[in-house]
């Protein structure tokens, strides 16, 4: 049977991808950020996941305001990245696992979650930066991937509680898959940052630390937050924390904190790396 081995959270801002491309990972500015990742990669080497379900938000590569799905679930054989307009070199492609995608889609739809299914889907930096950080753009890609794109562009957004509940349904769906597949779930984006308006540059260390503390084994404490609360506390792009909650929902109720690192700032953002291992 398939099993979710655990989850990883990571920021996914484009500046990380630019630093990797420019080989600036050892610069004093970036080193405290990148130095946290080898432990996460070692954990992946030990745990040997076959599939990564990668929860992220599209920033205007695949989806536009003409059609904006709240939850878009990848079901493709392969996923491609492309030019996003500001100079990050495209990565990939990434192999999919459409059989597992459709199994999860069928199961969570049967639990009354309404997904958009995507047999073609460009994945943007929100997807590729975590892949570069965790699998270092190895070819062939060491894992099959299932992208799950959460709308954070067009309000209203799905609530933190709804995202967590969808994660729980995804966890049950994976557990019912008859193949022997090991799955890691990545919750990407965040933590606090705001790019737009007179409050641009807003960042909130104490709220980020609170979220990282609670998400380990008390995620329920975060589920009464509204999107408005998240904007207020974490900035307008800090709402990406809903992707962390979706990831967390897919893991076992209690998890083991394997590794964490909080670093502030990278570009305009508070960065949180966490490795959470599901109970066996």
């Amino acid at each position, binding site marked *: 049977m398939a099993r979710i081995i655990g989850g990883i959270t990571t920021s996914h801002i*484009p*500046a990380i991808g630019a630093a990797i491309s420019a080989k600036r990972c050892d610069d004093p500015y970036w080193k405290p950020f990148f130095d946290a990742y080898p432990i996460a990669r070692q954990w992946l080497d030990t745990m040997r996941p076959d599939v990564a379900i990668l929860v992220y938000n599209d*920033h*205007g*590569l695949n989806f*536009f*305001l*003409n059609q904006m799905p709240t939850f878009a679930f990848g079901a493709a054989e392969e996923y491609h990245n*492309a*030019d*996003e*307009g*500001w*100079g990050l070199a495209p990565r990939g492609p990434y192999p999919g696992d459409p059989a597992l995608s459709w199994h999860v889609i069928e199961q969570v739809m049967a639990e009354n979650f309404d997904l958009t299914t995507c047999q073609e889907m460009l994945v943007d930096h929100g997807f590729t930066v975590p892949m570069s950080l965790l699998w270092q753009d190895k070819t062939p890609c060491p894992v099959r991937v299932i992208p799950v794109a959460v709308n954070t*562009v*067009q*309000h*209203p957004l799905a609530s933190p509680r709804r995202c967590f509940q969808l994660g729980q349904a995804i966890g049950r769906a994976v557990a019912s898959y008859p193949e022997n597949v090991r799955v890691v779930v990545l919750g990407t984006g965040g933590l606090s940052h*705001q*790019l*737009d*308006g*007179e*409050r*641009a*540059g*807003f*960042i909130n*260390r104490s709220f980020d630390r609170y979220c990282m503390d609670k998400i380990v084994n008390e995620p329920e404490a975060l589920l009464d937050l*509204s999107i*408005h609360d998240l*904007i*207020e506390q974490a900035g*307008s792009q800090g709402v990406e924390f809903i992707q962390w909650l979706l990831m967390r929902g897919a893991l076992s109720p209690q998890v083991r904190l394997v590794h964490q690192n909080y*670093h*502030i*700032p990278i*570009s*305009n953002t*508070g960065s949180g790396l966490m490795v959470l291992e599901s109970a066996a």
Partner: protein
Amino acid sequence: MPATIDRRPIFGTCPFDGTQARKGYALNKMCFSFNQANNRAAFLKDEDAYCRRFGLNTAQREAIRHRNVLELLAAGGNIYYLAKFAGIFGLNVQDIGAQQTGMSVDAFKAKLLKAGG
């Protein structure tokens, strides 16, 4: 019972809701087109013609002319699409953060570093 929508104002922040989406559709559609290199080149070659093609209104056209992010937001722009417009000029999110807060880029970066303690 209808749901209560929380609209408490947050300083310097305008969530991109339906009102903004309606107001900014043409502007955002143009900026979305800048994912493609040939469209970025077409904009640079003839800015007026490119803006006309997408049907920008006067406020949007002026905001594009001024390269002013706060004006673009006020005209209904969404920051993710506007970032592609800024990218044409090699500007990143720290450059546009500085512009919106009236700071120099160095001062804006210093403010973020200070948040790190």
